[in-house]
């Protein structure tokens, strides 16, 4: 089973993805974007949130869900440090001595950590072992029809420290000003989860953990997505720049084989997704789950999980 989610969310004055600090200026991530204006294409630069940022938040949610369900999470991932068994030093925490067989290495990592099972890993030593992530996430980008209204604007802030003349060093000022570039846009992103890849070897060695645990891992993966979206715990600087807004639309599709919702950056993405699903249903005679809302996104996610439970997948 393959789950694909299209999310639209409004975020005003957010600093969810900052890219560099130059002096006292912290910049928001920006990407070039093609928009059509008066029948001509042009490039504009819009605020964006990277897939890496969203993937980190998802994996952090997954840590909490997995631990809550007594599923294994390795020492590094439990701290939110997703090293993913990248070298001998990290892999030795799971198995010592390290075997020469890549299938054994993969099996050990999958058994000992749900995060590396779902989020993939790369052991970059001899023999190198790579596992693709079972989930995929796009950048969050302003939706096409409103991209020209998206902004990235610096906000001025000041910090103040009382200090007497003796305590002063060089040209340090009592008052320091700094700028934080904030973004405002109606963003859209896509999240996919290949439930069939969870708990199963990517090197052709079949299921690595018992069927019951595979179902529990799938459930933890779905709950993590639910929790991440519902709590809006993604991106950075939430402590002072928690975005004003929230999810405006959410579309969920569950199919037997990989199918990705039409990107929510397009206004007609819900209708287009439905039409594409109908064609696939006719051509391949495959069942699917589809739901969409602009009211209570949690309800759509709950229905998708129930559908997968009915199918015996979780």
């Amino acid at each position, binding site marked *: 089973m393959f789950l694909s989610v299209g999310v639209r969310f409004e975020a005003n004055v957010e600093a969810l993805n900052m890219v*560099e600090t*130059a*002096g*006292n*200026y912290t*910049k928001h991530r920006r990407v*070039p974007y093609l928009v059509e204006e008066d029948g001509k294409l*042009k*490039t504009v*630069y819009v605020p964006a949130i990277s897939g890496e940022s969203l993937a980190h938040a998802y994996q952090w949610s997954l840590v909490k869900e997995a631990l809550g369900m007594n599923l294994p999470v390795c020492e590094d991932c439990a701290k939110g440090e997703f090293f993913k068994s990248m070298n001998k030093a990290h892999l030795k925490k799971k198995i010592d001595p390290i075997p020469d067989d890549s299938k054994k290495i993969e099996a050990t990592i999958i058994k000992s950590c749900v995060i590396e099972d779902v989020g993939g890993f790369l052991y970059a030593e001899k023999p190198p072992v790579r596992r693709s992530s079972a989930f995929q996430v796009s950048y969050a980008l302003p939706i096409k029809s409103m991209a020209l209204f998206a902004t990235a604007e610096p906000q001025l802030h000041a910090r103040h420290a009382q200090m007497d003349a003796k305590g002063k060093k*060089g040209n340090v000022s009592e008052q320091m000003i700094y700028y934080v570039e904030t973004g405002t846009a109606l963003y859209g992103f896509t999240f996919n989860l290949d439930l069939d890849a969870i708990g199963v070897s990517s090197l052709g060695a079949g299921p690595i953990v018992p069927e019951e645990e595979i179902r529990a891992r799938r459930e933890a993966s779905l709950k993590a997505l639910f929790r991440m979206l519902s709590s809006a715990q993604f991106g950075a600087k939430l402590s002072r720049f928690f975005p004003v807004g929230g999810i405006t639309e959410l579309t969920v599709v569950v199919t037997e084989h990989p199918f990705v919702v039409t990107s929510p950056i397009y206004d007609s993405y819900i209708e287009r997704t439905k039409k594409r699903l109908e064609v696939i249903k006719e051509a391949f005679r495959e069942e699917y789950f589809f739901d969409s809302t602009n009211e209570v996104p949690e309800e759509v996610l709950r229905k998708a999980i129930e559908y997968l439970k009915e199918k015996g997948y979780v």
Partner: protein
Amino acid sequence: MDFPEIVNMLRFFIRTGNFGYVDRIGNALTYEPVEMAILEALRAFRSIHESAKTDENYGKYIEKDGKKIYLPRIPSEEEIRTFLNAVRKDMSVAKRVATLALAFPSKGGEE
């Protein structure tokens, strides 16, 4: 037209490990990304200038990994204007400037 002030500014970013601006200018296929990269580079460079330390010879520098990296001068309005006009006419000018910035400085510079 080699645009030495722009090249030196880009080279400063390269020395601090920030390849973003030079890559965007060197890889641009149209004018807009070059203009945006120059705008962002100048904004960042201005901020760094303001917070940089000054040595006994009034040279501005920042410290990275215990080493002093001296700041070149802020590119002049005239050079920026000429550069942007040249890029608008011929995109290969942008690639040439980025290539020069990535090269070892021939004289007077530091690496």
